[in-house]
């Protein structure tokens, strides 16, 4: 039931400013629910960002990242119309891939 990401990529010179919003509970394994039971760890483990299919960022995250995380990065040598792909996989094996195109500078 992974929710779609919101990806915004705008060109600034020859650098694409990429901003990604993900919706994920990012449970730390520390919190207790209303029944006083520990909510199990549930967090995004890996995030991969690609630029026209080529991996430009490959990260491993921990439960220390906030709920509904925001990720910003800048990709050099990008052109308007380039494809930016983002994939995350969480520790339960749930995954989500979304794509956006680089918008020209406004």
């Amino acid at each position: 039931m992974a929710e779609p990401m919101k990806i915004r990529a705008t060109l600034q010179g020859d650098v694409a400013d990429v901003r990604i919003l993900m919706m994920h509970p990012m449970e730390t394994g520390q919190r207790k629910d209303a029944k006083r039971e520990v909510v199990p760890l549930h967090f995004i483990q890996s995030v991969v960002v690609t630029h026209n299919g080529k991996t430009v960022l490959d990260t491993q995250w921990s439960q220390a990242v906030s709920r509904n995380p925001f990720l910003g990065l800048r990709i050099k040598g990008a052109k308007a119309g380039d494809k930016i792909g983002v994939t995350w996989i969480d520790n339960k094996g749930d995954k989500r891939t979304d794509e956006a195109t680089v918008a020209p500078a406004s």
Partner: protein
Amino acid sequence: MPTTRAGIAAIALACLAWPGAAYTQSDSLGVGRKMLAEDNPGELWVERGKRVFAEPRGPKRASLEQCDFGLGPGKLEGAYAALPRYFSDTDKVQDLESRLVTCMVNLQGFKSEDLAKTAMGNLDQMSDMEALAAYIASRSNGMKMNVRLSHQKEYDLYKAGEYIFFRRNGPTDFACVTCHGDNGKRIRLQDLPNMMDPKQMQETVSTWPAYLGTQSNLRTMQWRLKICYWQMRLPDLPYLSDLSIAITSYLNYQGNGAVIQVPGVKR
């Protein structure tokens, strides 16, 4: 976003005009808020609301596309700008969420008691209602708040809201205006809008529903009022009570002319 910048400029000006308030709104907070506004997680709720709106749901397996928010079935553009308004089918003045509940009961076959229980999401469960409210309100983005008091019931509820806004009550003898009647009032570091100032009132009504960082959730005016009542140590404000719609009526009418920009982003 130009409106956010204008908002920050307005706050900075307010600080200049009121030396006592200069310490309440540090620049670093404003910078953080601006960054949040540019990539507002509330957008995720709008997207989700859009999907939930069109999805066949409930015992009747119907979508909400036939729901009438005052401009005709399924017409969302500008609908939020005129809410709360009088609806002849229910013979009531309804705000966005009470109208949503009406539709979810009539069209989709949900039970209103169940909806009220899950209307406000928490860390364990996200709320459909909040997502829907964000989506529908966002369809009025860029339009001006334009609440009418043309029906007698609209006028009565507005007057009731005005009365409640200024009426002190409860163990702490608080009214809404106690905290929202002067510049520079705050709770801890959180600045409170002065609702006697039309400009600040407009900023308030045009940015709800909003994403709240401390909640990790998108919240609506119903939630805000409920928390205000809790903070005033008054009895719980029931979801969609006449009281809450009366206050919403008063606030939105006072904020008429505000350019709607939802979801807002708040602390």
